């Protein structure tokens, strides 16, 4: 997992998008927080893939169905539309090839849910603009040289990528610094400026 645990307000937003009894694959399932939440509240048939072996072992010990795997390499083994939902939460920015990964999510899942930190947030912009330094925030606590987050994007960048991949945005939510949803009526530029995290429901 590449982002601070306490800041995972996006998990509830993700969970709200998933109907009960769905088949769900959580890519980058970390310590299994989302899978446990979904199993407890939505009785989903949940599976996880996680890069860190330690995270996997802990999940399996807790009875979750998780395998060690790399989103960049191992998604190709899953069949087309094998899951109702494929979730990639706070992991896209840590993949080597985000475009390929997103393409695979859309192939494997009838729907894909992607949440990511918005690099267009005003604090990030301010840090670069005023201090001239790569931002280190509560949400993104790493320095540039040790961060696992190698492919940051803004909400607008992400929307462009979705268009390029022929994905339909079924629903999008931006969360502000307090984890509150930003009003739906707001235009993209507003989300892109004030949204600290974004959650997209996609299909293709």
């Amino acid at each position, binding site marked *: 997992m590449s982002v601070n645990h306490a800041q995972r307000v996006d998990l509830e937003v993700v969970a709200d998008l998933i109907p009960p009894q769905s088949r769900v694959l959580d890519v980058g399932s970390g310590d299994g927080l989302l899978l446990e939440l979904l199993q407890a509240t939505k009785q989903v048939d949940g599976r996880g893939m996680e890069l860190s072996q330690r995270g996997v*072992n802990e999940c*399996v*010990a807790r*009875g979750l169905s998780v*395998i*060690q795997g790399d989103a960049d390499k191992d998604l190709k083994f*899953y*069949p087309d539309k094998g899951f109702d939902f494929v979730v990639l939460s706070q992991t896209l920015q840590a993949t080597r090839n985000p475009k390929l990964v997103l393409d695979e999510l859309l192939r494997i899942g009838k729907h894909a849910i992607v949440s990511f930190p918005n690099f267009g947030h005003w604090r990030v912009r301010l840090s670069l603009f005023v201090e001239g330094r790569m931002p280190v925030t509560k949400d993104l606590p790493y320095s540039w040289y040790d961060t696992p987050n190698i492919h940051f994007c803004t909400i607008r960048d992400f929307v462009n990528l979705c268009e390029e991949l022929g994905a339909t945005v079924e629903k999008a939510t931006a969360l502000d610094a307090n984890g509150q949803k930003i009003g739906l009526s707001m235009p993209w530029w507003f989300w892109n400026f004030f949204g600290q995290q974004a959650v997209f429901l996609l299909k293709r």
Partner: protein
Amino acid sequence: MVALRTKRTNNEADEPSSPVLRFGADKPLKLDAGTLLSPFQIAYKTYGTLNDARSNAILVCHALTGDQHVASTNPVTGKPGWWEVLIGPGKIIDTSRFFVICSNVIGGCLGSTGPASTNPATGKPYGLDLPIITIRDMVRAQLMLVDHFGIEKLFSVLGGSMGGMQVLQWASSYPERVFSALPIATGARHSSQNIAFHEVGRQAVMADPDWHGGKYFEQGKRPEKGLAVARMAAHITYLSEAALHRKFGRNLQDREALTFGFDADFQIESYLRHQGMTFVDRFDANSYLYMTRAMDYFDLAADHGGRLADAFAGTKTRFCLVSFTSDWLFPTEESRSVVHALNAAGASVSFVEIETDRGHDAFLLDEPELFAAINGFIASAARARGLST
């Protein structure tokens, strides 16, 4: 002592000290070799009680030189059962909750029909007249045992190494009979290197003049030297270089200096010789040939047009695979390829790789992470199966 040793492992082969199920001419075992084995028998042990719904049964499959005495004292060696660290009352596989079945595989030497058993056609031990036995044959026989207990669906099938191969075969051949499967330190096929090591072992047995073309019982002999060498070579493959170095290094055995001879100067030599010697007391040489051959022939993908995922098409079984970082007999990649195939088949699968320097044998040892994984997997499977805690 000599008289005792030349007998067939205290006649455990024909009249085992564990329960035995005998199948007559009306119920032959169909073998992959294209023949029928009949009559034949399965020696087994059970622990715990089968519940009224017959839903709490766990089948444990043993490895190459294992046996049915998984959780109780072995009658031949007098040692504890080979998986007593895991299985028993109050243990991870709790026999006060589950009904655990473990049977000696067909081709074995502790009571299920094997080369040391008496061939009813001749009144002499089968020797090499027994057809080649495959992993699938072993599983087919186990199914007949499970049917005997009236168990529609096993709650779980688990095993390591050759036992893991049987688990995969069970899940592939009889998916509707297996609720959950736990293959440990295994693979869907035997690699070229593994076949190579087995061939070395077999050649060692056959090169022993006491082997007599497999008819050693009739000569009142046993190819102990050959079998011991086979075991010594195999034993190295069950460990890792790091573990060997940690345990023995270049330490000398009961001496201050090198003796400039071919005695067991080094502790590792003495250790291997001991492993070889104790093994021949409890295992039949021909059975060793058959067991190794069964593993060599195992290739689950080949049985499904080369596509491993097709071996598990449509499966509802819940899987948990475990591998060990220092296992070079069944390296993690072998488990991972099974995981990928299960993913492609849309199966529910967990996969844990455990960091240890204890090599392949780690699955038989007290490995807390292994136990945590098994515990978590079994507990969640039990909830899904509606078994009370």
